[in-house]
C-alpha cells in the first residue's frame, strides 16, 4: 500500500499551494491557491493533470490567496462539484480576500478576470465549515480532522485517514504564539506521511521579545517627542498583532497619545476578530471574559481631515508596503518631518515605496514625474512573521515522528538543507518534489489478528522477569481471519502429535 502525492503547486517554490494526495484510494486536494507573481496560466495549478470528478474532497487550510486563490476557478470553471471543507473563519474571510483581489486585478491593473463575483459567491456556497478537532467523515472510509495552526485567524492543519493510512498536511503554521494567535497544536498521531511547509527552512528566529522591545521603544520615543507614527499594514493579522501590543503598552505606561485605525477593511477585520474570538490565543480568550481585547481602549477611527492635526499620534493605514491608497497619502504628508516615524512590519514587494524605504534610507522618492517626496522621517523595520522557523519545523516533525516527510512551500536550496537535517538528525525519510511531480510513499499495512484464549492465558502467566515473552503460532488461512494460537492448539487443529527427539552426544577423549 502507498500514498500517492501529486504536487500541483508550492513545490520548491512559495505560491499556489496545492497538493493532491491519494490515500487508500481516495483523492484529497489540500489547498487550491494561486501564484501572486504571475498573471498568466502559471498563476493557477495545472488542473489538467487531474480529472475533477476523481477528487473526493477539497480542504482549504486558511484564507491567504496562495492557498485559496484558485478555488473558484477549480469549482466554477473546471467544474469540481464535490465537498469543500474549511474552518469557519476561513469561510467568513475568504470571500472578502478573493473579491478584493479580483477587484484589484480587474479595476487597477485592467487584466482579464479568471472568475467573476458570482463565481466566488457560488463557490463559497458549496463550502462546508469545520471546527478545530472536529472529525468529519467525508465518506465511508475517509475521515478528516482540523488542528489549530496559528499563522492567521482560522488557519488549520488537516489530518486525513483512510483505514490504517494516516497523513497530515500542515498548510502554513506557526509554532510560537504571538499576541493574538496561539501556537500550532497537534496530538500524537502515528502518521505515514507529513506534508509540511518550509518557508523558513534554514532560518532560526530569535526571541520575539527583542523585536517587540525595539518596536515599542522606537514608537514610544517618537510620540514622546511629539512625532507621528505611521504603520502601513494589511488589514488582517499584523494590524491586530501590533495594535494589541501597542494598546497593552499604552495601558501599562499610561500614555495618552491616540492610536488611529484608518477606516475601511481594518475596522471590518476587527469586527471579524471580535466575533471569532475562539480562534485566537489563550490570553485573548482569557481576557475575553472581562473585555473583548479587540475593543481597543486607545484606538479611535481616523479621518482624512486629521492628517495634519498637530500633536503626536499613531496611525495604522492600509495597504501595507505603501503601495498606494491611503497609506501613501499619509506618507506624503508625514515623511518630510524628521520627528515622524514610519514603521514597516514585514516583507515588502520590490517596486513599492515600502521596499525602497527598507533597502537603505533614501532622502527623496520620485513618485511620478511631478511628485517628489522629501524623506526626512525615521524608519523602523519590523520583522514579524507568522511562519514557523526551521527549529519549529524540526520540533513538529520530531513530535509527530511520521514515517515520511514531504516539504512544500519553500525555496529549493533551503529545502534541500532541511531535508538533510531531517534525514540525519531524526532518521526520517524526506523529499521535496517540484511542481507536477508525483511521490509515492509506501505505508505499512496492519492486519487484525485474533488470538485464542489459551494463547492469551499463556501470555499472562508466562512472565519472565520484566520482559513479557509469549510464544505462539500465527495461522493464516485463505478465507479465514488470521489467528494466533498456542502450540498445543495448533497441533490439535492439524491433528498432529508432539514428538520429542532427544540426542545424546558422547565425545571421545581421544578426539582431542
Amino acid at each position, binding site marked *: 500500500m502507498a500514498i500517492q502525492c501529486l504536487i500541483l503547486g508550492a513545490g520548491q517554490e512559495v505560491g499556489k499551494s496545492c497538493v493532491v494526495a491519494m490515500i487508500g484510494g481516495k483523492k484529497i486536494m489540500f489547498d487550491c491557491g494561486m501564484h501572486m507573481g504571475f498573471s498568466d496560466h502559471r498563476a493557477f495549478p495545472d488542473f489538467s493533470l487531474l480529472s475533477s470528478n476523481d477528487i473526493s474532497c477539497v480542504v482549504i487550510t486558511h484564507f491567504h490567496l496562495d492557498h485559496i486563490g484558485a478555488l473558484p476557478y477549480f469549482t466554477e470553471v473546471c467544474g469540481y462539484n464535490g465537498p469543500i471543507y474549511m474552518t469557519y473563519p476561513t469561510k467568513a474571510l475568504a470571500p472578502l480576500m478573493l473579491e478584493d483581489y479580483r477587484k484589484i486585478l480587474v479595476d487597477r491593473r485592467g487584466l482579464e478576470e479568471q472568475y467573476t463575483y458570482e463565481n466566488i459567491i457560488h463557490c463559497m456556497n458549496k463550502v462546508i465549515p469545520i471546527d478545530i478537532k472536529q472529525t468529519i467523515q467525508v465518506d465511508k472510509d475517509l475521515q478528516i480532522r482540523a488542528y489549530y495552526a496559528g499563522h492567521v485567524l482560522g488557519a488549520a492543519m488537516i489530518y486525513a485517514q483512510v483505514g490504517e493510512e494516516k497523513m497530515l498536511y500542515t498548510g502554513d503554521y506557526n509554532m510560537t504564539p504571538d499576541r493574538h494567535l496561539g*501556537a500550532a497544536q497537534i496530538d500524537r498521531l502515528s502518521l505515514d506521511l507529513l506534508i509540511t511547509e518550509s518557508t523558513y527552512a534554514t532560518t*532560526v*528566529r530569535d526571541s*520575539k521579545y527583542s523585536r517587540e522591545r525595539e518596536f515599542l*521603544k522606537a514608537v514610544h520615543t517618537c510620540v514622546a517627542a511629539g512625532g507621528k507614527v505611521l504603520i502601513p499594514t494589511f488589514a488582517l493579522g499584523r494590524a491586530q498583532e501590533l495594535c494589541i501590543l501597542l494598546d497593552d503598552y499604552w*495601558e*501599562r505606561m*499610561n500614555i495618552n497619545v491616540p492610536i488611529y485605525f484608518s477606516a475601511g477593511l481594518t475596522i471590518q477585520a476587527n469586527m471579524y476578530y471580535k466575533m471569532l474570538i475562539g480562534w485566537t490565543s*489563550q490570553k485573548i480568550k482569557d481576557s475575553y471574559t472581562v473585555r473583548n481585547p479587540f475593543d481597543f481602549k486607545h484606538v479611535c477611527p481616523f479621518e482624512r481631515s486629521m492628517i495634519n492635526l498637530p500633536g503626536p499620534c499613531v496611525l495604522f493605514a492600509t495597504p501595507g508596503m505603501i503601495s498606494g491608497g491611503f497609506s501613501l497619502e499619509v506618507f506624503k504628508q508625514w515623511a518630510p518631518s524628521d520627528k515622524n516615524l514610519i514603521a514597516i512590519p514585514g516583507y515588502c514587494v520590490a517596486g513599492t515605496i515600502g521596499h525602497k524605504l527598507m533597502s537603505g534610507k533614501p532622502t527623496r522618492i520620485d513618485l511620478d514625474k511631478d511628485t517628489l517626496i522629501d524623506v526626512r522621517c525615521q524608519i523602523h523595520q519590523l520583522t514579524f512573521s507568522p511562519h514557523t522557523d526551521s527549529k519549529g519545523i524540526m520540533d513538529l516533525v520530531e513530535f509527530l515522528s511520521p514515517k515520511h516527510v514531504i516539504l512544500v512551500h519553500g525555496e529549493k536550496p533551503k529545502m534541500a538543507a532541511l531535508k538533510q537535517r531531517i534525514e540525519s538528525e531524526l532518521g526520517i525519510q524526506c523529499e521535496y518534489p517540484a511542481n507536477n511531480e508525483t511521490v509515492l510513499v509506501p505505508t505499512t499495512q496492519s492486519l487484525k489478528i485474533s488470538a485464542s484464549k489459551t494463547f492469551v492465558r499463556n501470555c499472562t502467566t508466562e512472565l519472565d522477569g520484566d520482559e513479557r515473552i509469549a510464544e505462539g503460532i500465527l495461522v493464516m488461512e485463505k478465507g479465514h481471519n488470521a489467528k494466533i494460537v498456542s502450540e498445543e492448539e495448533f497441533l490439535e487443529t492439524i491433528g498432529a502429535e508432539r514428538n520429542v527427539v532427544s540426542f545424546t552426544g558422547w565425545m571421545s577423549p581421544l578426539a582431542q
Partner: protein
Amino acid sequence: MEEEGSLVQPLTTTCNPNPLFQFDLTSLSSAQALLLNPSTSIDTIHSTVDSLLLSLPHLSTNATSLSLALSVLAQSAPLHPSLSQSIVSSVRSLINGQDRTSSAVLSALLSIATSCHNEDGSSILTSILDEDLVLSLASSGVYKIRSRILRLLVFVVGRWKCSGKFLTDEVMVRVFLRFTGDIYPVLRRDAIDGLCEFLTVARDGVDFCVPECCLEHAIGLIGDDDEFVRVAAVRMVGLCGEMLGEKENGVDKTGQMDTIFTQICSMARDMSVKVRIEAFNALGKVKLVSDAVLMQSLSKKILGSKNGGKSIIKLDKASKPCAAGAYIHGIEDEFYVVRKSACRSLGIHAVMSFKFADDSINYLMDLMNDDSESVRLEALDSLFRMAAQGCLNVQEKHVHMFLGLLTDMSSLVRHGARKILQLMKLPKLEIFKSTVNKLIANLEKYPEEEEGIFFSLFSLGKNHREFSLNVAKDLAKQIERTSKGDLTFAKPSMAATLVVCIASPLSENENVPDTPVVLFSYAVPLLGRISRALQGTFDQHFLLTFLLDHSNIKWKSRDLMPEIVSKGISEDLMQSVIKFISKSVGDAWSLIKGSNGNDAEKILRSCMKELEIISLNASQAAITTLDFFSKYIQILQLISKIQCKFDFRNSTTFHIKSHHILLEKLDSALRKIRYSFTGWTKEVECHILELSLLVDVFTFSLARIPSNEYLKNLLSKISHLEAISCLSDFTKEIKRLIEERSSVMVNLHSLLKVFECSGLEFVREMKPIKAELKVVGDDSENPLTFVPGLPAGIRLWITLHNTSSTDRLWLHMSVRGRRPQYVFLDLSNFEGSEEVRKCSSLIPFYETPKVASFEIRVCIVIECLSEHYEVLKERGGPKYDVTELSVEKLVYFSSVKSR
C-alpha cells in the same frame, strides 16, 4: 428511634445462621442507610455491622452481593473508625478469592486505610498484606485488582517511615517499576507517583542506585503517549535529578546532570501545557549543569564547541539538539503559567552561573513587556535574586524597558522594580540620570509611594558615589542661579534629588567635602519626609544633627537634645518619674480638698503632659503604668471639676444636670480603670474602691432621698474593703454615717477631708486588659456587601490580652440612630492562654438597614460584674454596665444591588 427499630428487624434475622439466606438489595440498602445516618445509635451500628460480617461467608458464591456488602462496609468504616479492625479481620480471608471479590476487598481496605489516622491506616494494611500476597495481586491479569493494589501501595509508601513494613524497600521499588510498564496509562502514572513519593519520603535513606534506576525508567516514559504519564515522568526525572545532584559520591556529576537537563529540555516543546509546566519546574531542580548546556538552552541555534569550554557534542547524540532554546520556547509560550514557570527556573540557574546570568538577563528584561502581570512579577523576582547575588549586569539596551516599569500601572510591579534598583549597579552617568528622572516621574504620578521612592533614590545615590556627586553639583548650580524664595524648590522632585545627593555623604561619610554645603541646608526642612523613608536605617535625630552639622546653619547641639528622646527610658528614670507624679498627685489632692480646684487642675494638666512625653519612648511594661496614671489623673480632674461645682454652703443652687453628666463621666472613667488593668497590689485596689465609694457619695448626695439600693451598694463595697484590708478613716466615717442613718450630704465636706490619697507608689507590674480588633477584607474603598434586611457576616480577627476565663466579653455593634447589637464572645472558642487569646470568627450582624450603604461601629466591651446594681439592658445583651476594651472600628457595608 422507632423507625430505627423497624429497620433493624430484617437485619437481626440475618444473624440466624440459615445457609439459604441471601442478602437482598433492599436489606443491603437499609443497612447502608443505617450505617450512614449520623443519628443511628452505636448499638444499632454494631449489630448491623456484625450481621453484615456474619453474612459475608454465605455470600461468597454471589459475587455481586458480596461486593455490594463490602462496599457498604467500606463506606461506613470512615464514619465509625472503631469498627475498622473487626471489618478488616473478617475480610482477610476473602482477599484471595475470585477476581471480583478480591478487587472489592482491596477497595474496601483502601477506603478503611485512608480514613484512619496516619499510623493506624498502614498498620491495618501491614496486618493483612505480605510480600507474597502483594506480588500475586500485582501480577494479576485483572485491571481492577492491579489498580487497587497499586493505590494501596502508593498510600502505604506515603507513610513508609511511620509504619511497620510488609515489603522491603527493594521489593516496593521493584513492584512500582514493574507497574511503570503496565499497559494502562493510569497505572503507569500511579506507579510513577508512587516512586516519587517513595523517593521523597525515603530521601536520604535510599541507596544511590535507586534514583538512578528510577531515572532510567522515567526517561523511558517521558515520550509516553498519555499526557498524564508524561507529566508524572517529567516530574520524576526532575526529582531524581535533584536527588542525584545532592548526593555526594565523589564523582563529577556534570555529565549526568547535563543528560538529565537535556532530557527535560526536550519536553519543553511538548504539545501539552501541563507537561510544559512540569518540565520547567523540573529544570529548576536540576543543579550542577554545565555552562555549555545551559547556554544552549538559551539559544535555538546549535552552539558550536568553541562557545563553551566543554563541547556539548560529546553528549549523547540524541540529546544534543533537545536543549536548544528550551528557555526561549518557555518564555514565549502561549500560556502564562508556562512562562511563569520558565521564568522561575531561569532565575534559579541564573544565580548559579555568571555566564548564564549575563545571557538570561536579556530575556528576563524582555519579559517586562509581557502581557501578564504575574509573569512580569516573577521575572522581577528572578532579577531581584540575581541582583542580590551580584550577578545582575544591566546593559544600556535594557534600560528603557526597565525604567518603563517605574511608571507601570501595577503598584506591585513598580515596587518590584524599585527593589531591584536599590541593588543595581548602573554603568553610565546618563543612565543614572534618566533613572533618577524616572523615579521622580514615578513620584509625581504616584505621590503615595514617596517613602519607597526616596529609599530607592537613597540606595541609588549610595551605590553610585561619583554619579550622585555629579548630580549634586548640577543641583547646587541650579540653586545658585535662581533667586531666593523661589517656590520651584518646594516640589517633590527637589526633595527626591536632594535625597540622591545626600545619600553617599550620609551613609559612608564620603563625598562630604565635595558636596555643596547649600544642599544640606536645603535638606533640613525636608527632614521629616526623608527620615520617614529611611526609617530603620537612620534615626531622625542623627539625620538632623548630620544635616545641621554640614550645613551653614548655626546651632548648638544641646538645643535639640532632650536626653529622654534619644535614649529611651531607663528603669531608674521610670521610678523617679512615678515618684514625681505620685507626689504631684498628692499635692493636687490636698488642693482639691482645700477647694482650690484651679491650682489642682494646673498641676494635673502638667502631669498629663509629662506622661505624654515620656510614653513616647517608654518600654511596653512602662507604658501600662503610664497609661494607668493618665487614666487616674483624668479621674482626679473630673473629681476636681465636680468638687468645684458643689457649693457646700448652699446646696440648693447647683445645677443638677451638669453634675449628673460629670458624675456619669466619672463613673465610666472609674469603671474603665477598674476593668482595664489586672495584677495590681492590695493598696491600689483599696484606693480604687475608695474612689468608687467617693463617687457613690457624690451621687448619693445628689439624689437627696437615697434609695435602699444605693445604701446596699455602699455597704457591700465597704465589706469588700474590709475583706481586703483594715478600713481607712474615710471608709469608717461612711460606715458610721450609714449606720447612724444621718445624712451623708451634710458631711460631704468632712468626708472629703478624711479621704487620703495613698497607695499609688505601689503601682507596679500591672498588666493591661485590652483587646485588638481587626476587620478582615473591609475598608471604605472596598466595603463588604449585604442584602438589605438579611444578616451580614463580618469576619473579625480578635486578640485579647490578659483576660480571665470568668470575664464576660461582648462585641458591641451599632449603627448610628439604632439600638446596638451585642454578640457574646465565648472565651472557650479562643486559642491561647490568659495572656493572649486569639480567634478569628464570622460575626453576623442581623438588622441590616434598607439603605444602599451604611457603617457599623464595632468594639469589644467587658461586662463590669462587680458593679453591684443590676441595670436592665437590652434583651440578649450584657446585664451589667460595660466598658470598652478596644478601639472602635468602623465596618463599611454596601448593598449588593448598588455594586
